[in-house]
């Protein structure tokens, strides 16, 4: 054991210390890979973590909650109290309200007056006058500098106390809230608190039996589970994207250990001749990889924690715009995340080094005596590899045709991995083929430097192929995500053109996050319709609802108007006929993501819980929709209002008479509705907002790709440095033969340029394949929408040129090292 440790010091640690820069580059690559993984994980947790109802912190933990689409009728509190169940039923309401100086803030309402729910009353200073009193969360109180009064929706409230919570909210009594919002009938939910002697199952059964069929009885945590489920595809995709850098890092560890083995073959031979076992040699090199893995992981965790702070806001914004309201909570670096990151980094290092370590193990003792063994390039059977590449590609195609498993495109990701594997295996053949074609022109243009660069890359084919594969993987990811996002953007643009046909849109003032449908003042539609120049007013009623344990959006509009102005495109069927079939019929249309998520086809029946009733509707058609992954079920207003007569309107689409001045009509509408808390926006603004949200959503994707590219660049610099150090004798000899230092420098830069070009070619081919997988398999299975294939050619060309340029820049330092070698020293090292 002691002898192995001493061998490790001499054969591994000493060279690592000697080549400090290369060691640092490898550790840095690994660290970045791990950092991205941990950053995405921590930031994702923080963005999702705040879903747990902040109200729990002040009213205590409920045992059951009663919910209904469109709201729970308040009268059920009294009715349920009659049940022979030992429980207390409390009303719950959650709204967004405008607070002076703070903007829109979540307002929770509960029955604070009730005697047994007196936690908050006890903590209050003095006797509580709950009609005009609120409790403010610590976070909000701090932001507002500990106010004593709050002005909510124009009414003053006294601040009784603060609740220890890191999210911002205000809590007030249910009676005060109902008065404030002018809604005395509907509650968001009824919370059920069981007495300790009551059996949960028995109570649940009794309550369920008493309630109408449209009502749901859930255990606590259901909402949180729903949120997690809703976000799983989003988080899964982010997580997978974050592993790209780690995959690129794996290639680089493989490369570093390979270089380490090739350079130390004579030493390994001597060790074997002196009696070191094959296993000993194997573990020696695996331990080297382990060192890289551990050092990279430790550094990566620290960097990742910092990165997480930078991206949590971005993820939270996306969650808010596309899924549901949330506020990012604190980033918590837990023991589990540290262990996972350490394990991921170390395991990747370990696995990627196993191959080269096995090669080291097989070095024969006679190699110690063999001169010229240093030139032994990693021999690559490129034809055999090409056959394996074809097999992997075929397996990838087969995997891409398998359906999602539990809503996750597991086989789609496996297909992507197989494609990357196929690309890596095809790299040697590509390097040989392309360099063979380019050698004559390179020699003509760059002379000796061109010839030497081309020859040197093919001579060390094994190593060149790994670097090309690593760079190509990063480029492919960039290209594929670029193509996917570009295609998606173009698809959304076309869709916005079709969807946004109205001239002016109106909504209630309030937060704009996903699932937020603040009600419009009831008089708004009539006021707008009366404005001169307005041809039609389509009133839309939207609200979040539950369908088969998933949340989606239920909407209802005037289908006659939608038909007249042609605002929807369907996957199949005649748009006009479908829309005409909706009014006064039990029919609905659903968005494509909803249909894909719930496996619904046109003609099928849907069972919807609307208020107290369970309503069956027939799906008349499936329409293209890209604003919500959760999906829409859309009814004609006549159908919705039949079951939920009091359901407030939330949005208005205004169509104008031909030729009228849109801006002037908008002003008239604003005048007519002056004083009402509504927002009036022209078509153009909505379009711009749509594009802004889209671009923000994918900002993080680009950031992740950027890191993968940086890792690959570090790898390119590392690999070029290794090539230089390995060819010291050759570079020294060139000086003897009359090469100027500038020529040596140019040769290395030509090599870097060639590496970049090869990586770009492979990366583009692989990227195209991956983009097809992303668009037609992974995205479709994760989010359910159809994206048209529209590669952003200009952007792609610019990005690839940039990557190529950066690869050449990565060659500057190795080129400098090469040109400064002392020829006498290196030529006499023999």
């Amino acid at each position, binding site marked *: 054991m002691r002898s192995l440790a001493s061998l490790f010091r001499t054969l591994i640690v000493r060279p690592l210390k000697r080549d400090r820069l290369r060691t640092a580059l490898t550790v840095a690559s690994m660290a970045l890979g791990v950092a991205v993984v941990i950053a995405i994980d921590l930031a994702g947790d923080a963005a999702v973590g705040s879903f747990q109802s902040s109200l729990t912190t002040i009213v205590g933990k409920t045992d059951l909650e009663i919910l209904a689409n469109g709201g729970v009728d308040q009268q059920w509190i009294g009715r349920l109290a009659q049940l022979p169940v030992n429980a207390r039923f409390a009303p719950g309401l959650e709204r967004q309200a405008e607070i002076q100086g703070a903007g829109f803030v979540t307002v929770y309402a509960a029955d604070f007056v009730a005697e047994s729910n007196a936690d908050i009353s006890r903590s209050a200073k003095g006797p509580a006058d709950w009609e005009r009193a609120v409790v403010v969360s610590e976070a909000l109180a701090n932001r507002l500098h500990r106010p004593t009064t709050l002005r909510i929706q124009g009414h003053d409230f006294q601040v009784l106390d603060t609740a220890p919570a890191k999210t911002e909210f205000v809590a007030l009594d249910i009676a005060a809230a109902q008065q404030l919002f002018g809604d005395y009938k509907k509650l968001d939910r009824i919370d059920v608190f069981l007495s300790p002697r009551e059996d949960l199952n028995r109570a649940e059964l009794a309550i369920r039996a008493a309630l109408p069929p449209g009502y749901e009885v859930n255990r606590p945590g259901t909402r949180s589970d729903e949120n997690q489920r809703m976000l799983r595809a989003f988080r899964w995709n982010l997580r997978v994207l974050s592993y790209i850098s780690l995959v690129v890092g794996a290639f680089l560890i493989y490369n570093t250990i390979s270089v380490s083995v090739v350079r130390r073959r004579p030493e390994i031979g001597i060790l074997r001749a002196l009696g070191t076992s094959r296993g000993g040699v194997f573990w020696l090199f695996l331990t080297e990889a382990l060192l890289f893995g551990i050092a990279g992981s430790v550094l990566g965790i620290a960097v990742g924690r910092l990165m997480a702070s930078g991206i949590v806001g971005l993820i939270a914004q996306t969650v808010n715009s596309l899924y549901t309201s949330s506020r990012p909570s604190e980033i918590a670096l837990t023991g589990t995340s540290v262990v996972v990151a350490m394990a991921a980094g170390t395991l990747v290092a370990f696995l990627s080094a196993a191959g080269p370590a096995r090669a080291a193990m097989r070095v024969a003792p006679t190699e110690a005596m063999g001169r010229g063994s240093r030139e032994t390039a990693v021999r690559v059977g490129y034809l055999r590899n090409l056959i394996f590449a074809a097999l992997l590609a075929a397996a990838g195609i087969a995997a891409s045709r398998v359906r999602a498993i539990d809503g996750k495109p597991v086989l789609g990701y496996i297909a992507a991995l197989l494609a990357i594997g196929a690309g890596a295996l095809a790299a040697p053949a590509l390097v040989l083929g392309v360099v063979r074609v380019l050698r004559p022109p390179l020699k003509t243009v760059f002379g000796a430097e061109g010839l*030497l660069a081309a020859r040197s890359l093919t001579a060390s084919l094994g190593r060149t192929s790994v670097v090309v594969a690593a760079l190509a993987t990063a480029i492919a990811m960039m290209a594929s995500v670029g193509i996917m996002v570009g295609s998606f953007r173009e698809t959304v643009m076309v869709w916005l053109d079709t969807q946004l046909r109205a001239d002016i849109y109106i909504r209630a003032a309030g937060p704009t996050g996903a699932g937020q449908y603040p009600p419009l003042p009831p008089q708004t539609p009539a006021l707008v319709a009366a404005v001169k120049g307005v041809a039609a007013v389509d009133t839309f009623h939207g609200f979040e609802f539950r369908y088969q344990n998933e949340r989606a959006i239920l909407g209802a509009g005037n289908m006659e108007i939608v038909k007249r102005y042609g605002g929807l495109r369907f996957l199949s069927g005649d748009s006009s006929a479908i829309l005409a079939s909706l009014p006064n019929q039990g029919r609905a249309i659903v968005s494509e993501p909803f249909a894909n998520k719930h496996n619904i086809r046109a003609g099928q029946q849907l069972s919807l819980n609307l208020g107290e009733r369970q309503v069956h509707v027939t799906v008349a058609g499936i329409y293209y929709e890209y604003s919500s992954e959760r999906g829409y079920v859309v009814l004609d207003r006549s159908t919705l209002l039949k079951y939920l007569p009091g359901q407030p309107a939330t949005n208005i689409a205004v169509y104008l008479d031909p030729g009228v001045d849109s801006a002037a009509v908008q002003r008239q509408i604003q005048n007519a509705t002056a004083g009402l808390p509504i927002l009036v926006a022209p078509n153009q603004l909505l379009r711009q907002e749509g594009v802004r949200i889209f671009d923000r959503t994918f900002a993080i994707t680009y950031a992740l790709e950027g890191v993968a590219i940086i890792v690959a660049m570090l790898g390119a610099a590392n690999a070029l440095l290794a090539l230089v150090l390995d060819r010291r004798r050759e570079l020294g000899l060139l000086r003897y033969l*009359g*090469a100027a*230092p500038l020529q040596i420098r140019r040769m290395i830069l030509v090599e870097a340029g060639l590496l970049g070009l090869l990586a770009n070619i492979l990366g583009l081919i692989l990227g195209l394949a991956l983009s097809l997988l992303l668009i037609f398999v992974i995205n479709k299975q994760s989010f359910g929408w159809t994206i048209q294939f529209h590669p952003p050619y200009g952007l792609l060309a610019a990005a690839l040129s940039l990557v190529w340029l950066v690869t050449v820049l990565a060659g500057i330092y190795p080129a400098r090292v090469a040109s400064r070698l002392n020829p006498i020293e290196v*030529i006499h090292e023999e």
Partner: protein
Amino acid sequence: MPSPRLELRSVSRTYQINDQKLHALQDVSLAAEAGTVTALLGRSGCGKSTLLNLAGAMDFPSSGDVLIEGRSTSSLNEADLTALRRKRIGFVFQFFQLLPTLTVLENVELPLLLSGAPNSAKTARDRLQWVGLDDRATSLPHQLSGGQMQRVAVARALVQSPDILIADEPTGNLDTGSGDQVLNLISRCATEFGAAVLMATHSAEAAAIAQVRVRMRDGRIENIDRRQN
């Protein structure tokens, strides 16, 4: 009397290794003339390789002057030195030092390519023919025998028709037959190309082709033996 192609005047070379000074060469004076072979003889470590590096303008004296075509190497800048090595000096090494990734022809052509000379491939092919290996032009070095590799190295050294040929133990790694072939070529370099050949060797056979034999010991010239062929 014609001026020598290469002249060393009272040359010393000292290396600083940690706190110690190592005197690799001490007060060496020597001249090599066109068309002659000068053999440097002596044990390992006597200063032969140091002298060759100075003569090839790869290293510079601590004191004294190395004159090539009458110009001191110490006075030349990097560009002049590179030009000098390209045009006027050819090197042959004990371990051949061919680039394993280049074909035989490309190895020979390399100095011409580095200097941007025209018709490089034709000139290289001529030199290969001269060493009798034109049929191996497309082979890679590892496909040749040791003797063949050294002949390729000689062709490469001669491709620019240099004034000075520096050979460091050119037969040290060859069997007798191959060694004789290489020595014959080196000898012809002097007679046919008029090069001043400076050759370090341990071998008596190699020394036998030289007109001037310089025996060295501990960084100094012990004696110089000139003979008429």
